[in-house]
């Protein structure tokens, strides 16, 4: 019999399997491939499907090996298909490691890197990437109408058996039966499988997965009266396939399983009514009376809620509260029993013993808890009810174009804006101000539209132009200027919390962020329709006509500050997504969505469910690379498709070379400390693993060192042998011109954060010096010494490990004689390694020449679980991806299974029926013109925000904007041509102290950029070139802090004469000018900048070298601009404040200059006249006329 089975297996393996399976790929994801066997289909008939999950031996990406596994082949072979025609779906688990550095697996187990597989008892709540892909494939395949969705089965072996347990317990509704062969089960999930037929197979002597794991599960399932079969093969090990295939009746059993209706699938349908009754009469009342006050709707202490089944089983901060069937392990029982000192519930008084006994009994008998009514509703606290006040809030109402009013003094109106403004002024019995004088006007509009002062010539030309459209001509000229985009793009960058570094606790350079900035500038210059601007920023990578430019636009999603070093990766991910949700909602809709992360919004109709519907979209978007200890953001190559091919070819080549190098490295003989020797000398270049390159040529004959390849972090590892365990002394020889404190790890333990931290003077061999690093514990046999630095390491030459000794060992070295000591005697290998290193360096250099942008990847697609209290440690029910429920009449379908939903989100945001997006942007533009919005809380259009001062005008502008194709430039023209914009500025009347009715134009202080740029214009130093980056710090290395050079101002070219928009924004090291003059915190979205008048601004104006330097330059410049002092004074006034000084002003200025000159001369200062002029110019720059625009 056994022999027969063996022959059978051989026969199966020899069948041309590949012909039985089609090779396919997930829609839109050519890299996610799978195999599908399709039966011979008769029209109108439906066929079952078997999802087969392979074992760990056939992981990979060949899409070949898994279908050759005996069971996959068994289902697809002709004999089986004759009687049981079925689809067989075979996905493949990727080889390699996931984002957290764990080997890919169908299931992510808690503690899997610390514990042996037999002790993996609890899977992480979130499905592995691999199973998510598999589910996406399954959903895709199930669209085939020939598949009978009532007969979908899952079967797997070993690793696949574990996957089978996971899938069937988490997605019981998808499957009609499961076959789990020698897999790891989770008994805590048994209650989920109460209704699912499962056949378990295991070998008694399985050395890989203990048979107990199947025995215990079978027992647990029986407690639920689950339809379980358990077959244990006596004496069998881990390889069971042939026996399973030989199991009589297996196929018949499997294909007979079918669920007749959805309800039948619900485990509750099978619940023992007696147990349900027990729960309702003996358990639920106890929970309600004693627990729900602190673990209910209002409070969820410890992250735990006990008022619904879903949240009770999801558990709290310390994990699930209830382990069905296991009272001893259930924290709920331990708490009520007062077993643990720090977990005693209820806190004030222990429950009566009889009540505790009931609870214990209930848990032991499976903790049966019928699904609560409405528990499928996604919100933590049930479905959020919108109050009438919420529903009727102004910003959610459809935008209707209001009629333009006819105010009393309509003759002063120049366009519709004025009519709206005038009618409110009428009502308040206020008069508008007269039109401002021409010099004021041209200065105002020039600063407003391009952020620079007008030149004296431009002022003169406008004064001379008496035509009625003179001002309109100026406006048009300014809007056509390339500097317009720099000014208005900069406004948008406040909203996009733009920066060139990450900030937060690891202030890494985002050296490619500038491509987003330049995209924004050019989008404004090109007057890109606003809806397109929105779509590109949300989904520029997914648009049908995606280009490098639209890819750069997605930088919007990428720019938030992130806690890159957070060791709790799920938390980091949840925080990154939170930042994206919050910024997107506030930027485009003025909705403070961040509030809904932890609970339904308290004031606005923003349920937690809607938050996680949006979070799912960003969760299905990959913007973070978590594979390294310090995580980083994703970047994508920019440019033509042929670049893509070249880039992937280069990446492949590098990967191949690396792998070959690793192998060559492994073949090296490990250096070993002889039992009799005092120490072992190792050459730095003889490392076992590392990402640095070996340098042997440039430093002189025979001198080998290691150098960085600039793919930080630098990492070098040495393996070597020690005869016995104990403390050994480590000595290092290296050269370092600057301090490069490096992490030293011994056998994976971080021993020193700042090893090799000395400065030796230079990078050259002459500067190499020996240092005793310290004494450390090593073990007997193979040890691993590693150097790790998030940046370049010092130039290491050699190191020594030796017996602890007062006298350093290196002193006893004769370097000439010992050169090459312990050099592995594998010259050919070393030569090959050297060649490989050279080839890697060439390929890496080429790769670095391709431009990249910060941009996300789409997928893998997965809905987000609601996180109880926003904590990544407490995931609950999943919410389908989607949008805000309060916004009606926007006909955009919910995202499908093959895409994240960003494209749909972008369409939804820009849909003409979305009442928020157009209102929010026209309000922003109004605010950037007038200093205040019609709604003064530009980022909050909710009920806690402000109501519009002119709601009709806001809606009229919003409709006008949409009718005009979302053209921002047209809106500028409309606004600038209004009398409201052109009126004079004056002080506010008592009737309207805050000038909300706009009876005059509000005077404004220049913002940081305009103030700095204006000084550079007046001094003649402004470099007007457009675009590009001033960053020299390498991408993803420290821009500030860490091991970044200390002098950030120099490093970032803060002294550049370029326009301020091009100064790098280093979140933890802002330019002084920005820090002083109310530049917003670049880590947060800012719709309106604060404006303060503080003494540090005065100190900066009085004493900063920058302002003093500009004063000198202006003084020198005006010497050329006039032949006498009067002309020079006039030139200074015209340049700096766009006006002609009065006679009195001239007299005072000259008196000041004369007095200063004589004071200076008396003090013996050279160039006293020139210095006196510089003092005058300094005062002019500090004057209100310069700093404020009227």
């Amino acid at each position, binding site marked *: 019999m056994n022999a027969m089975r063996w022959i059978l297996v051989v026969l199966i393996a020899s069948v041309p399997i590949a012909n039985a399976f089609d090779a396919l790929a997930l829609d839109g994801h050519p890299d996610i491939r799978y195999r599908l066997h399709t039966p011979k289909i008769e029209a109108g008939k439906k066929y079952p499907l078997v999802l087969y999950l392979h074992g760990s031996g056939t992981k990979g990406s060949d899409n070949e090996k898994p279908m050759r596994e005996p069971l996959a082949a068994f289902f697809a072979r002709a004999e089986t298909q004759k009687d049981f025609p079925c689809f067989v779906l075979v996905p493949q688990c990727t080889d390699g490691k996931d984002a957290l550095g764990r080997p890919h697996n169908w299931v992510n187990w808690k503690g899997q890197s*610390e514990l042996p597989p037999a002790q993996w008892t609890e899977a992480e709540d979130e499905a592995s990437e691999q199973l998510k892909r598999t589910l996406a494939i399954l959903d895709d395949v199930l669209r085939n109408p020939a598949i009978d969705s009532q007969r979908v089965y899952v079967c797997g072996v070993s690793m696949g058996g574990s996957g089978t347990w996971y899938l069937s317990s988490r997605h019981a509704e998808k499957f009609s039966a499961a076959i789990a062969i020698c897999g790891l089960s989770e008994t805590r999930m048994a209650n989920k499988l109460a209704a699912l037929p499962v056949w378990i197979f295991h070998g008694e002597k399985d050395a890989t997965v203990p048979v107990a794991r199947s025995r215990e599960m079978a027992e647990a399932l029986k407690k639920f009266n689950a339809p379980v079969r358990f077959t244990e093969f006596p004496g069998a090990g881990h390889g069971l396939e042939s026996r399973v295939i030989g199991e009589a009746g297996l196929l018949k059993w499997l294909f007979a399983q079918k669920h007749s209706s959805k309800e039948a699938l619900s485990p509750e349908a099978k619940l023992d009514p007696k147990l349900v009754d027990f729960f309702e009469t003996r358990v639920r009342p106890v929970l309600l009376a004693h627990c729900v006050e602190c673990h209910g709707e209002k409070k969820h202490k410890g992250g735990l809620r006990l008022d619904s089944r879903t949240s009770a089983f999801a558990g709290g901060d310390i994990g699930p509260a209830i382990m069905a069937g296991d009272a001893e392990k259930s924290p709920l029982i331990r708490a009520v029993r007062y077993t643990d*000192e*720090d977990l005693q519930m209820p806190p004030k008084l222990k429950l009566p013993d009889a009540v505790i006994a009931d609870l214990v009994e209930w848990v032991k008998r499976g903790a049966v808890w019928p699904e609560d009514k409405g528990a499928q509703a996604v919100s933590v606290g049930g479905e959020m009810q919108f109050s009438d006040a919420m529903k009727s809030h102004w910003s959610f109402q459809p935008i209707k174009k209001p009629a333009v009013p006819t105010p009393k003094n309509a003759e002063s109106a120049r366009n519709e804006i004025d009519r709206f403004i005038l009618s409110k002024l009428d009502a308040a019995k206020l008069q508008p101000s007269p039109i401002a004088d021409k010099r004021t006007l041209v200065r105002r509009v020039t600063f407003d539209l391009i952020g620079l002062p007008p030149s004296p010539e431009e002022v003169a030309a406008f004064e001379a132009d008496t035509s009625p459209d003179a001002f309109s001509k100026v406006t048009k000229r300014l809007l056509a200027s390339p500097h317009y985009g720099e000014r208005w793009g900069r406004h948008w960058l406040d909203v996009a919390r733009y920066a060139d570094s990450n900030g*937060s606790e690891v202030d890494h350079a985002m050296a490619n962020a500038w491509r987003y900035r330049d995209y924004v500038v050019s989008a404004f210059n090109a007057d890109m329709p606003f809806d397109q601007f929105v779509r590109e920023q949300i989904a520029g990578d997914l648009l049908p006509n995606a280009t490098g430019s639209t890819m750069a636009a997605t930088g919007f999603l990428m720019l938030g500050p992130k*806690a890159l*070093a*957070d*060791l709790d990766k799920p938390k980091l991910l949840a925080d990154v997504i939170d*930042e994206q949700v919050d910024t997107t909602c506030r930027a485009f809709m003025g909705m*403070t969505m*961040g*509030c809904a992360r932890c609970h339904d919004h308290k004031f*606005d109709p923003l349920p937690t469910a809607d938050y996680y519907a949006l979070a799912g979209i960003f969760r299905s978007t990959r913007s973070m690379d978590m594979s390294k200890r310090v995580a980083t953001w994703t970047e994508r190559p920019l440019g033509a498709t042929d670049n893509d091919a070249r880039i992937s070819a280069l990446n492949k080549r590098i990967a191949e070379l690396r792998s070959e190098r690793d192998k060559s490295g492994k073949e090296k003989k490990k250096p070993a400390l002889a039992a009799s020797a005092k120490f072992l000398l190792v050459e730095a270049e003889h490392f076992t693993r590392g990402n640095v390159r070996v340098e042997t040529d440039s430093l002189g004959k025979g001198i080998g060192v290691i150098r960085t390849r600039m793919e930080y972090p630098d990492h070098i590892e040495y393996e070597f042998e020690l005869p016995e365990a104990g403390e050994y002394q480590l000595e290092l020889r290296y050269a370092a011109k600057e301090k490069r404190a490096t992490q030293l790890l011994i056998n*994976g*333990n*971080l*021993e*020193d*954060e700042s090893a090799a931290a000395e400065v030796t003077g230079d990078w050259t061999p002459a500067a190499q010096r020996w240092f005793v690093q310290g*004494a*450390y*514990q090593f073990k007997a046999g193979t040890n691993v010494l590693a150097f790790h630095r998030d940046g370049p390491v010092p130039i290491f030459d050699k190191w020594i490990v030796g017996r602890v000794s007062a006298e350093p060992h290196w002193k006893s070295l004769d370097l000439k004689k010992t050169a090459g000591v312990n050099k592995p005697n594998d010259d050919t290998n070393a030569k090959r390694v050297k060649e490989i290193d050279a080839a890697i360096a060439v390929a890496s250099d080429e790769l670095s020449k391709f431009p990249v942008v910060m941009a996300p990847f789409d997928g893998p697609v997965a809905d987000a679980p609601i996180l109880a209290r926003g904590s990544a440690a407490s995931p609950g029910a999943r919410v389908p991806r989607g949008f805000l429920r309060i916004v009606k009449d926007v006909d955009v379908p919910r995202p499908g299974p093959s895409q994240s939903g960003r494209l749909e989100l972008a369409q939804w945001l820009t849909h003409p029926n979305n009442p928020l997006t157009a209102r929010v942007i026209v309000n922003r533009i109004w605010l950037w013109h007038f*200093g*205040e919005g019609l709604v003064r809380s530009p980022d*909050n259009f909710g009920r806690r*925000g*402000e109501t519009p001062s002119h709601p009709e005008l806001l809606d009229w502008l919003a409709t006008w904007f949409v009718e005009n194709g979302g053209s921002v430039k047209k809106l500028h023209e409309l606004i600038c041509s209004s009398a409201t914009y052109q009126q004079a500025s*004056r*002080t*506010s009347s008592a009737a309207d102290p*805050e*000038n909300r009715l706009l009876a005059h134009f509000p005077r*404004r*202080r220049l913002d940081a950029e305009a103030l700095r740029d204006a000084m550079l214009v007046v001094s003649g130093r402004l470099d007007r070139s457009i675009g590009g980056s001033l960053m020299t710090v390498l991408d993803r290395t420290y821009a500030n*802090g*860490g091991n970044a050079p200390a002098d950030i101002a120099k490093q970032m070219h803060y002294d550049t004469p370029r326009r301020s928009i091009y100064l790098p924004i280093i979140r*933890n090291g802002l330019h*002084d000018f920005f820090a002083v003059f109310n530049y917003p915190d670049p*880590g*947060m979205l800012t719709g309106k900048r*604060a*404006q*303060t*008048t*503080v*003494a*540090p601004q*005065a100190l900066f104006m009085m004493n*900063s070298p920058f302002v003093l330097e500009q004063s000198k330059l202006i003084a020198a410049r005006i010497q050329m601009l006039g032949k006498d002092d009067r002309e020079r004074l006039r030139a200074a006034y015209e340049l700096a404040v766009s006006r002609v000084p009065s006679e009195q002003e001239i007299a*005072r200025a000259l008196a*000041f200059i004369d007095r*200063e000159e004589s*004071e200076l001369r008396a003090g013996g200062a050279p160039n006293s006249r020139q210095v006196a002029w510089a*003092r005058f110019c300094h*005062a002019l720059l*500090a*004057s*209100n*006329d310069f*700093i404020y625009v009227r």
Partner: protein
Amino acid sequence: MSTINPSGCCNFSHPVSRRDALRQFGVGFGGLALAGLLGQPARAEGDALPANPLAPKKPMLPAKAKRIIFLFMHGGPSAVDTFDYKPALADHDGQSAPRQPKLTFAAANGREGSKLWKSPWKFTPRGKSGHMVSELFPHLGAQVDEMCFLHSCHGTAPDHGAAVLKMNTGTEAFVRPSMGSWLLYGLGTENQNLPGFITITPSDTHGGVRNYGSAFLPAVYQGTALGSEHAKARDAKFRFLGKSNDAAQRRELDFLRELNQRSAASERDSELEARINSYELAFKMQMAAPEVLDISRESKATQELYGMNDPKTAEFGTKCLLARRFAEAGVRFIQVSTGLVWDQHGDLVKKHTENAFASDKPAAGLLQDLKQRGMLDDTLVIWGGEFGRTPTREGGNGRDHNPHGYTMWLAGGGVKPGRVGATDELGYFAVENKIHVNDLHATLLALMGLDHEKLTYRYAGRDFRLTDVAGRVVREVFA
């Protein structure tokens, strides 16, 4: 000695009108935001700033302390080697720790090589209370009767960056206002000629400026850095401070006033007046700051008290002495950073000895000096790092990060000397009367007369607090 009179900074007559009040208080060093009057407010979603956001405010509750000096031990000193005496650790030396934390910093913690390690230092009972202090701190040991030891401090983040941000801003991942900026927002400051929140030689790593930033609070509440961790304390300066009482600058400011008269005269505009006055106050500030920074005016005895006579203690001594001078001048919150020196993953014995030596005498000197000047009663001194270190050995001779249980101490400012909370018998986990970072913040605010649940700021649609949605006032520390 020359001191700065906290209220004598402005030579104006008593305020009689709102305008005079603005003149007097509205143009201090930190800030003046008259914007509220002018329709250009720096406001949070509609709430205008008061005329002088830094004017001293009455505390919500009876205040025990008026100001805080936070001696920040960056890197995380080991509790079991300093103030948290654990005799059982010696009994279990070399054994595995019975309970391991979920989240650890070094990869191998909790696995091989991480055995319990008894403190290499001797502990002796000190003071009247007999609190056990290790020989690392002979001088601070003499002050134990002033201190309230919080032995059960704990946090969540095992890495420096997140833990430092948490300690200073109450959050690990988001952009939130720092502790000092919350205090300024809640209490204002007494001396308008000096910043109300000064951080001495702050680190530019582990959050950098964010640790004294104001985030969404108005910028007037942000901290002002004096020097940086790269500079020696005695060379530390405020940025852009000009010469004191410079005659040429005085003349220039007079001329500037004339230049500005055109606009001011025609418009009677308080913001423009404020701008003019801000130059005057900056000028006065230039006179005030050098005086307070000039520690050479301190007596020899005082200098010696802070260890200024020994190069090894002079650096931290300078910082502590500056902190006292700022406190005396009415600065609300002063942070003193050691720089990232306490992070001994290896070489614990040598480096902890050095670090303790460098800071012991100066910190003890600060306590004594405050006491002898009668300032300790209303000055709250805090000592501690962003976390502690494991009682287990990391590698050969180091200890790993331990956010699960560590010691901080408070002194002065209405604090009852003694001890609160405890770690387990090995000093690994806080077990008794646990004090989370949020609880610490709630307690500090309470000592300053602020209710942490009521000190809120509306931003992005909700009211934010230093303590987020947590925090418990540890009443046991109150005198």
